[in-house]
């Protein structure tokens, strides 16, 4: 495996958002994720069962930045929905911070969706405050906390705009702010930068790392961009096969804080190429059932 200097990021002071309330993401092992023997199937409209994930097991220690890669349709979004408690698994268990996940736990785990999914009828501020509102936090407090998070993602002066007045990158920032506002122990991110141009995508990644450095929650970040996966991660998990399971896990030990300069180093390329080779091998093995490119609505492979 590729080597670099020290492995654990021990930088920066953890800053606990606007008010001292909750801050569950900061207490030791709270954000650990344990997944064992997870099998997930969908029943299609003809009542046929499709197993998407089979026997997926992994563990992510608290405070780790983990990325999940895999081709389109391999079940990455499905995995995140299970972790977020939105779907039930057929078998297997998910524990987050020692708690078994059977339903959404909005104060423990939050999800940033594949598209930003902002509510068009709410201002930026009220979009970000939404999770606090549904959690029953009082108006003044939720506005203060939402403002603080928006400052953190660099949108301090766009708070009274509506989503349609924002660029794609700004929308994703708002979505991230909404994910962070409750100070979750675990932040799940589903290809949050997929719709952005390459330059912006990596800049947002860099910014996300700075944020994470201050908040120190566990992040599970889904992407199908190899460079992004390696650049961000402490740990890269590869979903492969069909039905998919975690094939390969790679620890990425480049020092932190990282900047985009890392991406032009030979070590970075070696690691990236190694992952690419393993994914290509997987694709050849499951000949033609799915393609590497992202193709809109991923259709179920006929087989």
């Amino acid at each position: 495996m590729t080597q670099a200097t020290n492995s654990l990021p021990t930088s920066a002071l953890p800053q606990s958002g606007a008010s001292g309330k909750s801050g569950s993401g900061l207490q030791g092992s709270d954000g650990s994720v344990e997944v064992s023997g997870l099998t997930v199937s969908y029943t299609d409209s003809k009542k046929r069962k499709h197993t998407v994930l089979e026997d997926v097991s992994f563990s992510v220690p608290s405070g780790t930045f983990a990325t999940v890669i895999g081709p389109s349709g391999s079940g990455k979004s499905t995995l995140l929905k299970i972790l977020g408690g939105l779907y039930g698994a057929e078998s297997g268990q998910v524990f987050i911070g020692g708690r078994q996940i059977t339903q959404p736990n909005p104060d423990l785990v939050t999800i940033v969706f594949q598209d930003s999914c902002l509510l068009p009828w709410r201002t930026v501020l009220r979009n970000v405050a939404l999770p606090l509102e549904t959690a029953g936090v009082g108006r003044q407090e939720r506005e203060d906390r939402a403002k603080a998070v928006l400052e953190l993602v660099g949108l301090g002066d766009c708070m009274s705009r509506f989503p349609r007045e924002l660029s794609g990158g700004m929308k994703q920032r708002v979505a991230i702010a909404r994910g962070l506002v409750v100070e979750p122990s675990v932040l799940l991110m589903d290809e949050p930068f997929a719709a952005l141009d390459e330059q912006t995508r990596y800049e947002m990644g860099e910014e996300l790392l700075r944020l994470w450095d201050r908040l120190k929650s566990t992040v599970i970040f889904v992407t199908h961009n190899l460079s992004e996966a390696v650049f961000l991660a402490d740990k890269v998990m590869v979903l492969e096969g069909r039905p998919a399971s975690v094939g390969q896990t790679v620890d990425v030990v480049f020092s932190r804080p990282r900047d985009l300069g890392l991406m032009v180093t030979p070590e970075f390329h070696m690691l990236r190429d190694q992952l690419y080779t393993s994914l290509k091998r997987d694709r050849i093995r499951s000949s033609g059932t799915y393609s590497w490119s992202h193709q809109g609505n991923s259709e179920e492979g006929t087989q």
Partner: protein
Amino acid sequence: MSLKEPVHRAEDKEPSSSQDLERHTGAPWRSLSRAIAKKAIIALVFLAIWWVITGTRILPAFAVPGPLAVANATKSSLHEIFSQSLVTVERVVIAVAVIWFIGALCGILVGMNPRLWPLLGLGRALYAVPIVVVYPLLGVWFGVGATSKIVFGIISGILPMSLMSAAAVRSIDENVFLLFASLGVSRTTMFRRAVLPAALPGVISAMRLSGSLGLVSVVVGEMLLSGNGIGYWIANAGAQFEGPSLYEGIIVVLIFAVLMNSFVGFLERRIAVAYG
């Protein structure tokens, strides 16, 4: 010219946050008064054209009486046409209120429950039936009074209102539901915070269409079978070849339509601030 324009637009678009807030609170009212002014101008132009046409006497005075003739007739019958209008207004208001509230409620409920979606097919089939044919039946059931007109108005308007509201709910982005589900909210919260606001633009378009259907149906009901109301006034004037009275009635109905349209337009502009 071509150089200047983009610059202006860019400036217009730059929303500073304080300006923004102002725009959000002030705009609907200002645009309402602007809309009224615009309608007044249209009415004046219409009157002028009318006056010119009848002044030239190319059309018989009965078929198109001049504005002055209508105005004179109105002056002498002002009290009566006003009281007939009030009769109709009351019926229309009741019918349209029922259409809007009950129709929106039914539509949203059906839209939210996939198990009830087969009802939409049934509704669409029913909507294709020309409802006027059952009107005499309503007369038999409810008599010649207000009830048969109100019921007729409701029947004509409530189907499109429900169908369009249901469609508005069904077209809500799946992700919105996923987001709220991930926040662990109850069904009522989901309804109030997600479904209602997301469906609102569609519901308001439904109000526009079903409201005018309700109005038309009440007036038609009065024309067909009634002893009062503006529809009766029109039918009566037509039967007795009283040109000016006929025009008075038509103008009153036009005013109703414009008023209702303005109300829905006002609602539309109020929400446009947020929905774009």
